[in-house]
């Protein structure tokens, strides 16, 4: 069953989805119809966080969002982190911190974690260890054991604070 065309705003740009199938998740539409495969497909049951995006500013699993039901909403993906237009510009603080801290190994969890950490730091610029751990507890990483990721969150928070002061 096909859906009627619907619009989304992705990383600040309006897009139209034509000829979608009824059950397609936002994750599928981003990856397979809109050419934005940065959000990842690790479990497609909301248990790993790899597909995390911001939907109208809320951190959600895009695999659990029915794409057509998100019509006219704002979606922010990893591709838009470094600048609002979605072009690869200078890295955002969280991205830089992940690179510098060695928080990236295979990288499959990375986009979702970046979105989660970015959302956290927007809300809480100076989080303590437990707050960080709880905020990323929905993002599984199988390579790092989280050590370098926690280090990256500290670095990103410090960079942001420095930039703001």
């Amino acid at each position: 069953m096909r859906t009627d065309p619907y619009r989304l705003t992705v990383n600040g740009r309006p897009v139209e989805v034509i000829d979608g199938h009824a059950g397609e998740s936002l994750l599928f539409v981003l990856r397979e119809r809109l050419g934005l495969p940065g959000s990842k497909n690790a479990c497609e049951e909301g248990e790993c966080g790899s597909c995390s995006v911001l939907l109208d500013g809320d951190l959600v699993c895009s695999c659990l969002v029915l794409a057509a039901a998100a019509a006219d909403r704002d979606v922010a993906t990893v591709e838009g982190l470094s600048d609002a237009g979605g072009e690869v510009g200078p890295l955002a603080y969280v991205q830089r911190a992940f690179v510098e801290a060695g928080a990236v190994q295979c990288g499959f969890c990375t986009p979702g974690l970046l979105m989660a950490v970015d959302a956290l730091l927007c809300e809480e610029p100076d989080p303590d260890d437990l707050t960080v751990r709880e905020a990323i507890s929905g993002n599984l990483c199988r390579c790092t054991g989280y050590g370098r990721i926690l280090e990256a969150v500290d670095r990103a928070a410090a960079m942001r604070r420095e930039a703001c002061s």
Partner: protein
Amino acid sequence: MSEVRATQTRGRTRPSGIGESVRRPDAIPKVTGAFAFSSDLRHDRMLWGGTLRSPHPSARISSIDVGPAVAVTGVHAVLTHSDVPGRATFGLEHLDQSVLAGDVVRYAGEPVAIVAADHPDTVRRALDAIQVEYEVTEPLVDPSRAETATPIHPDGNLIRRIHLRHGDPSAADREGLVTVEGTYEVGMQDQAFLGPESGLAVPAADGGVDLFIATQWLHVDRDQVADCLGMDPDLVRLTLAGVGGAFGAREDLSLHVHLCMLALYTGRPVKMVYSRHESFHGHVHRHPARMWYRHHAEPDGTLVRVEARLLLDGGAYASSSGAVIANATCFAAGPYRVPSADVDGVVVRTNNPPCGAMRGFGAVQTCMAHEAQMDRLATALDMDPIDLRLKNALAPGDRLLTGQVLTGTLPVAEVIRTCAEHPSAAVRSDEPMTRPGGAGRTADADHVVRGEALAVGFKNLMFSEGFDDSSAARCELRDGVVTITCACAEVGQGFVTLIGQITSEVLGVDEVVLAPVETTGIGSAGSTSASRQSWMSGGAVQKACEEVRAAVVARVAVTHDVPVDDLVLVEGRVESLSGSVSVDLAEATAEPLSADVVYRHAPTSPLDHDGQGDAHVSFAVSAHRAIVDVDPDLGLVRVVELTTSQDVGRVLNPVQAVGQLEGGAAQGVGLAVMEEVLVDGGRIRNASFTDYLVPTALDMPPVEIAALIEQPEPGAPFGAKGIGEPPCISSTAAVVGALRHATGLELARVPVRPADIALAEAQAGVDR
């Protein structure tokens, strides 16, 4: 997108030398989302593939009717066993597994048919429409019955037995020894990489096929795929697509042949992506193990003899079971001097899910058992468990259970001592969220008890038993630009960073181009497994760079009439020590230079009838100390801190090394307290991340690194040992040891389930 996105390993890296925390060249594309994992690939006119799997662990297929599936609009191909163009079977050690099941299925999840269609929904409907009639037969699910049961496969139910006999068999036949005995069990662990199996096959104009795939070993995949397609290997070209973790689960074929069959049949590119549920059925797992042990020691703690019976469940197909049982057997007693041993290691075939490679590869299972035995022995001797381990610690010059004399470095005592002596940073937090049970708010402070234990792990590096283990690399220097070609699969471990570091170290350049990782134009790099790539492909890259370096120097020596010995390569120039010559490397290599090398480690021998022989190249040892909090009434656990020391030879990249140690420890924690593929009657009951639980950031404690012991390994490039596996070997044993310490319970099985603690505690309460 009209073409396959470039694989990320093609690109430049700005490295610096060995021993520095150089950043990964692929980190930036990975943080921007631009890095193309195998599931991210797209192609014009692309179709989607899917797999129909057997719901039964044991059945005869009486008929398959693909007609209703073919009739579904949008379906382009429905293929079965009879459509396999070449050899019908594959396998790493034995060709015992069918590409698509013919008349028999031997595990629940075995592929039976494949489909290509215009959309994943269409694929799903087509798979549902295929009519397969099964005559269900009684599955063989108990590995202890396998050897006597009717064979479930023409190759028989015994995959491999190694009966290792070492030293004087009567060593323990005397009075006055202290003997401890125990039976242990390890559950089936899943690698649970995050990037599910996926790939894209594109039919080529020359009749061949290009396969973009996430794998650990391109060339062995290529050879198997070509055989199954009945095609010249040159016509089957594999390119590494971005790999979302591996940990052993990508050493066997999964969807490779299926994708190529569908692409060749339809004449169109085909993409396939496993769901998480399918992934649990689509790759091998860590072998479940049942292990009986008896240790004999002098009253002063000196080990006299170790006896063990190891039974590993290989599941339906052999995969790499033969090598896994060899490791389990050879390292059954841990890194200790054991003058006499009898270890009967057996791996059998059952109708359970197939098992094969996973990080630690046989040593994880036995470590959990031998370390429990060492603690038990310490208790029986009334001796400090650290002292007992130190007293028996292996050292260079000692013999292994296999009779092999340790000739390389093996700082067992140093590893134990530094780990044990490292001060703990663990504090008791008042925050309820940090207690066992976490978010569930079940424990108050007075419900929690703390325990601590140390464990030591021991394993070989690289392939053993006479395997001709090699890696090929090419270094090309043109106009001052170095290009490295090597088919080593980057699976997240960071070899892409090491290539740059090695090249920079040898050639004095700060920029290296990494050629695409593919089967065309370069030989095999071997598998990214067995902690072998830093040594093997690192060695190949080093040697290729050294040959090119020698050629450049020779050329400049001739053109500038200076002795070869007077020339060095620094910062992109060839300079003489005397200062008379300084040539831009670009100028010196306007006429390109290149070197192709195949690197091999020292040869090894097969094990003989008694499991004796110089079967291994090199070894590594690690220790973990775990501190755990337990809520005994509920059986809930929180690992509070891990401290580790590891024998690394030499640290090549400190940040990457820490990443391996932390990540490996997390997998060890998972096996200790939560991770198990639950198999009931041959069927997996928890094939999802909802029910197969891996540690979250709230489960994983800080990992304190007490020491990275740097004793350069003779023969190893830069003296460096592989470091990937040890962190997940001793961590499990340490955590379960700490749980025993906290609870006083036997806890002879991992993962330790809450009920194992809570109901045992409740029973003990009644008994008291």
